[in-house]
C-alpha cells in the first residue's frame, strides 16, 4: 500500500490542531468549526478507504490464503539509543487497527459535527476544536502503533488531550479537579504500563508487536523462567502492562476518574469517555493477545477484574441521578464485559476445546457496536441537557412529546445496549456470552446477570427521562429538539445501531486472521433475551408512570441505596488513603525535613554570605595606596605561606 493515505490520516488531525491552536484566536467560531469538521471528515473518508482496501481488496499483503495478515505500511527508526534499543514510528494495518480507524474517525466526525451546535457561542470554541483534533491524532496514532513504545507515547498524548478536554471549562472548580483526577489516576496506572514495557522489552529485545505476537512462545522462552515473588517475570510484565489498560479503561480499582470526567462537555464524553479512549485498555489486551494467551495467570487476572468491575458498575448505575453518571457507569460495565470476553478466550485447548476465536472476536465486535450506541446515548444525553439545562433526571420526565427525534434515537440506543434483537448489541453480547458459557458456566451466568442489570438501569433512565411525570418547568421554558447539527449525528448513529449487528464481523476480525462464522447459539440467545425483556418489564412497571413503588423499594434497604448512590465509597477510601495516610503521615515528615533541614541550611548559607560580604567591604576602599598595599601583601603572603608549608 502506498504510504500517502496512512500519513495523511495522521497528518491532517495534527495539522488541524496546530492551525486551530495557533491561528484559532484570529478566526471566527464559524470558520474554526468548519475547518475542524472538514479536516475530520477528510480523515474519516481516508480512513474508510484504507480500511476498505485492507479488508476487501484481496491484496496478498493483507490476506494470504484466506488469512488476514499484519502489514506494516511503514516503520521508520526514530530514536536509536543503542544497537538493540531502537524506537520506531510506524503504521500497522491489521484487522483490529483497521476497525479502530473506522470507529475513531466515524465517532470523531459525528462529535465534530454535533459540537458545532452544542458548543455554539462558548468562549474558547476554537480551542475546543483544536483539542478535539489533537485527541483524534493521538488516538489514531495509538491504534496504528507498530511497537509498544510508540503506543505508549500516543497513550500519554491521549491522556493529555483527555485532560485538556475534561478541564475545558477551566473556570469551574469541579471541572478542574475532575481533569486533575483523571490525569493523575491514569498517569499512575501508566507507571505500571511503563515498567511492564521495560520488563518485557528487556527480555525480548524488541518493542515490535508483530515480532512479539507472531512468536509468543519465543517471548515466554526469552524470560528463561525467571520468577519474581512467586510469579514468572512475564506474568508480572503482562499484568503491569494490563495495569495501564485498567487505568485508561476505568477498571476497578482505578475506575474513580471516569464518572468525574463527565464534567467535560458532553460531546467529549461521547468521543473520549465512551467510544474511543476508554476502550484503549481493551485494545491493548487485544493487541498483545497472543502473548497474554501464553500467560494463564494474567488472563485469569483480566477475567476476575473484568467480572467484578462489570457487576459493581452496573449496581452503581441503578442508583445514580445524573444521567451522564449513569452512562459513565454503564460504560465502565460494558468495557469490563469486553475484558471478560477477552479473558475467557484462550489460545490453547482446555479439556479438548478451543476457546480462542469466539471470545476475541466477540470482544472486538462489542467494542465496535458499543462505540456506536454508547456515543449515540451520550449525544442524546447531550441533547437532553441542552434542552433542560440540567444533568439530573429529576428535572426531566415526560420529554417524549417535546423531543421526538431524541426520544426515538435514545430508545434505539437503550434497546441496543440491553441486547434486544435486532439491534446491534444483541449480536455482540450474544457472542460474548456464548464464549463465556463455553469457557465455564460461572462466567456466563454472572455476566448474564450483569446484562440483565444493564437492561434494567438503562430503561430506568429511559422511563424516568421520557415518561414518568412532566416537569412543571416546561410551561415556562418549553424544551425542543436540538438543531440539525446535533440531530443529524443522532439519526446516523441510531441507524448504525440498528444495522451494525448484521455486519459479518467474524469474517473480518478474528484473533489469528482466519474467518470465523458467526452463528447464534439459541439457548444463550434465548436466555439473555428473556432476562433483558424481564428487566425492561420491571423497569417499566416501576418507572413508566409516577408511583410510589420506587420509593418503597428504596426504603426497604436505604443503606444499600445510599451506598450504591455513593459508589460504594470508593472515592472516600481513596481520600482516606491519600489525605489521611500519605499526606498526613508520610508527606508531613518529608515537609518537616524540607523546612527545617534543607531550607534552614540554605538560609544559613545565605546569611553567612551576606554577613561576610558586609564584613570584608573595607578591602575595597577606593584608595590606591591601600590597593597596592593589599597587592604586595598578597604576593608576599602567597610566597610565605607556600614556603612555610613546603620547606
Amino acid at each position, binding site marked *: 500500500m502506498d504510504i500517502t493515505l496512512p500519513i495523511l490520516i495522521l497528518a491532517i488531525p495534527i495539522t488541524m490542531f496546530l492551525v486551530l491552536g495557533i491561528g484559532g484566536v484570529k478566526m471566527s467560531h464559524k470558520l474554526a468549526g468548519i475547518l475542524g469538521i472538514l479536516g475530520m471528515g477528510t480523515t474519516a473518508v481516508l480512513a474508510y478507504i484504507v480500511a476498505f482496501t485492507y479488508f476487501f481488496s484481496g491484496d496478498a499483503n493483507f490476506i494470504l490464503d484466506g488469512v488476514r495478515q499484519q502489514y506494516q505500511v511503514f516503520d521508520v527508526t526514530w530514536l536509536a539509543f543503542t544497537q538493540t534499543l531502537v524506537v520506531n514510528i510506524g503504521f500497522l494495518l491489521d484487522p483490529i487497527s483497521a476497525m479502530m480507524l473506522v470507529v475513531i474517525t466515524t465517532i470523531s466526525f459525528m462529535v465534530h459535527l454535533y459540537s458545532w451546535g452544542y458548543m455554539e457561542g462558548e468562549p474558547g470554541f476554537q480551542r475546543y476544536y483544536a483539542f478535539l483534533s489533537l485527541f483524534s491524532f493521538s488516538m489514531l496514532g495509538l491504534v496504528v502503533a507498530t511497537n509498544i513504545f510508540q503506543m505508549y507515547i500516543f497513550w500519554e498524548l491521549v491522556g493529555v488531550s483527555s485532560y485538556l478536554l475534561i478541564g475545558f471549562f477551566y473556570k469551574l472548580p469541579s471541572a478542574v479537579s475532575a481533569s486533575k483526577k483523571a490525569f493523575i489516576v491514569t498517569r499512575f496506572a501508566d507507571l505500571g504500563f511503563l515498567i511492564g514495557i521495560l520488563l518485557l522489552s528487556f527480555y525480548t529485545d524488541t518493542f515490535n508487536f508483530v515480532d512479539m505476537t507472531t512468536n509468543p512462545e519465543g517471548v515466554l522462552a526469552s524470560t528463561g523462567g525467571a520468577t519474581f515473588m512467586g510469579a514468572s517475570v512475564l506474568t508480572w510484565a503482562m499484568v503491569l502492562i494490563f495495569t495501564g489498560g485498567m487505568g485508561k479503561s476505568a477498571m476497578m480499582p482505578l475506575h474513580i476518574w471516569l464518572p468525574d470526567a463527565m464534567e467535560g462537555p458532553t460531546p467529549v464524553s461521547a468521543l473520549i469517555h465512551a467510544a474511543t479512549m476508554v476502550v484503549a485498555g481493551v485494545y491493548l489486551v487485544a493487541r498483545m493477545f497472543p502473548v497474554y494467551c501464553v500467560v494463564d495467570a494474567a488472563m485469569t487476572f483480566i477475567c476476575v477484574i473484568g467480572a467484578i468491575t462489570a457487576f459493581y458498575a452496573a449496581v452503581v448505575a441503578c442508583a445514580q441521578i445524573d444521567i451522564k453518571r449513569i452512562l459513565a457507569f454503564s460504560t465502565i460495565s460494558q468495557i469490563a464485559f469486553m475484558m471478560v470476553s477477552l479473558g475467557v478466550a484462550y489460545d490453547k485447548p482446555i479439556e479438548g476445546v478451543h476457546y480462542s476465536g469466539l471470545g476475541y472476536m466477540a470482544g472486538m465486535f462489542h467494542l465496535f457496536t458499543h462505540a456506536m450506541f454508547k456515543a449515540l446515548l451520550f449525544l442524546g444525553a447531550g441533547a437532553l441537557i441542552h434542552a433542560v439545562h440540567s444533568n439530573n433526571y429529576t428535572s426531566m420526565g415526560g420529554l417524549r412529546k417535546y423531543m421526538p427525534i431524541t426520544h426515538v434515537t435514545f430508545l434505539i440506543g437503550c434497546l441496543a445496549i440491553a441486547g434486544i434483537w435486532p439491534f446491534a448489541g444483541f449480536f455482540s453480547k450474544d457472542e460474548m456470552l456464548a464464549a463465556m458459557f463455553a469457557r465455564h458456566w460461572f462466567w456466563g451466568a454472572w455476566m448474564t446477570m450483569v446484562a440483565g442489570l444493564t437492561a434494567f438501569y438503562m430503561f430506568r433512565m429511559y422511563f424516568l427521562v421520557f415518561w414518568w411525570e412532566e416537569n412543571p418547568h416546561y410551561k415556562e421554558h418549553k424544551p425542543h429538539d436540538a438543531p440539525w447539527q446535533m440531530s443529524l449525528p443522532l439519526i446516523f448513529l441510531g441507524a448504525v445501531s440498528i444495522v451494525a449487528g448484521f455486519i459479518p464481523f467474524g469474517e473480518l476480525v478474528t484473533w489469528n486472521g482466519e474467518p470465523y462464522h458467526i452463528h447464534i447459539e439459541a439457548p444463550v440467545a434465548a436466555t439473555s433475551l428473556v432476562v433483558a425483556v424481564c428487566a425492561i418489564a420491571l423497569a417499566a412497571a416501576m418507572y413508566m408512570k409516577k408511583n410510589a413503588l420506587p420509593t418503597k423499594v428504596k426504603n426497604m434497604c436505604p443503606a444499600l441505596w445510599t451506598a450504591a448512590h455513593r459508589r460504594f465509597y470508593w472515592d472516600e477510601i481513596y481520600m482516606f488513603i491519600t489525605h489521611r495516610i500519605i499526606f498526613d503521615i508520610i508527606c508531613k515528615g518529608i515537609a518537616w525535613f524540607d523546612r527545617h533541614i534543607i531550607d534552614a541550611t540554605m538560609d544559613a548559607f545565605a546569611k553567612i*554570605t551576606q554577613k561576610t560580604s558586609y564584613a570584608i567591604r573595607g578591602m575595597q576602599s577606593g584608595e590606591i595606596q591601600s590597593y*597596592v598595599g593589599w597587592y604586595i*601583601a*598578597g604576593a608576599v603572603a602567597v610566597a610565605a605561606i*607556600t*614556603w612555610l608549608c613546603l620547606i
Partner: protein
Amino acid sequence: MDYSQFGSMIPELIVLGIFMLVFLFDTFSNEKGKKILTPLTTILFALGTVAIWIVPASGEMVFGGMYINDTATNALKAILNVGVFIVFLQSSKWVESDEVAIRKGEFYELILVTLFGMYLMVSARHFLLFIIGLESASLPLAALVAFNKKHYESHEAAIKYIMTAVFSSAVLLAGLSFVYAFSGGSLYFDDIAITIGQGGMSGLLIIALAFVLAGIGFKLSLVPFHLWTADVYQGAPTAITSYLSVISKGAAAFAFFVIFVQCFGAVYSDAWEWMLYGVIILTITVGNLFAVRQKNMKRFMAFSSVSQAGYIMLGAMAADGLGLAGMMFYIFVYVVSNLGAFAVISTIEENTGKLDMDDYNGLHKTNPWLSFAMTLAMFSLAGIPPFAGFFSKILIFTSVTGSGSWALYMLVLIALINTIISLYYYLLVVKAMWISSEEPKIGSFSSACSNRVALWLCIAGIVFFGLVPYIYQYCYDAVRDSLAFLLIF
C-alpha cells in the same frame, strides 16, 4: 636575519595591517571620509577574523625560539578576535557620539595595538617578548580607560589602572629577575623548564613564582591582586570595560597557562599547584561576596568577572591538554556571555544613561528583547543548562577532577558552592527585569542596528555552542594538534 620567519606571524600581521590601514585612513582622510571609518574598521576586522579562523597555523618556532604560532595559540587568537568584533559592533554607536566622534580613530587604533600586544603575550616563548607584549597591551589600555575626557571618574580609573599596572609590572619583573638568576642567564621558556627540572625547589623559586603569579594575576584580577578592577570597570567607558573584562583576561589566562605549565611545570605539585589552589578559592569566593552587594551594573559585572576569572584558572589547575581545551572553551563562552550582558548595559546606557540595577526594574515591559538577551547572558554566566555556560563549567570541572586527587575534588566542590552564590546575584538582575512590579524607569526605545547584531551574535553563541559541540571540539583539536603542548596531553 631570515625575513621569511615573519610568515609564521600571520595573525599579528593581519592585526598590524588593519591597524596601519585604519591609522593612515584616519590621518589622511577628510571629514566626509571619516564617516565610513567605523564600518570600514568593523568590516576589515571581520575579514581578518575569518582569515585567522581559516588560515592554518604554521606551528614553527621562529626567531630563535622566541615566538610560536601553533594551532592552540591560533585558536585562542581567533576566539579573542570574535570578542573584539562584538566589542566593535556594540561600540559603533558610542564612537559616533559628539564627545567621542572626533577621536574615534584613536579608539580603534589603541584597541588594535593592545590586541597586538596580547597576541605577543600568547605566542611568546621568551620572557622578554612576553613583557613587551604585556606592556604594549597595558599602557594603551590606560589611555582607553581615560577616553571619556570630560568625566572625572574616567580619569580616576585611568590613574588607578596605570599606577597598579606599573606596580604589578615591577613585581613581575622582580620575579622574572629571580627566574633569570635561577636559570643561569636564559629567559627562554624551554631553558627555564630544563633548569627548574634539574634544580628542584628552593626559596628563591617560591618567591619568583609568587611574584610572577601576582604580576599576571593583576591582568586576570585574581584576588588579592584585583582591587583595581571595580573602580576601573566602573569609571571606564562601557565599551572599554567590556573589552577589558573579556579580551585582556582571555589573553592573560592563556599566557598564564603557558608560562606555568611550560616553564614551571616541573614544580607543579611541589609549589604552584597549592598557590593557585588558594588564589582560585579566594578569587571565586571574594568576587562573589562583593558581587552580592553591588548596585551599579558595571561594578556588579566587575566582581562577576573577578569570580569568573577564578573559574577560568581552574583550567590551569588541571595543567593538562584537557584543562587547556576546557579553559579555551570557557574563555569563548565567557566572551559571548559577558559581552552579551555588556551589550545590553551599553545599549541602555547610550539610550538612557542609566546604569543602576534598580533602573532595570520591570524592563521587560518596555524592552522585552533586551531583557531576554540579558536573561540569557545571566543564565549562561551562572551556568544554568542548557546554555553554553553550563557546558563550559562542566567541562572545566571534569578536567580538574581528571587526576582524581581529593584536594581537587574539594576545589570543585567549593567552586560549585560558589556557583550557587553566584546564581543569587545573577538572578537578582533577572528578577529586577521580569518579576519586579515597579513601573519601568527605562522607556521603550529601539536600539541601533549594530547593537542588535552584536546581541544576536551573543545570543546565538550562548544558545547554540553549548548544545553544538563545534567550538569545544575546535579547541580540543587545536590543543591536541599543537606541537608545543604535545608533551602535556
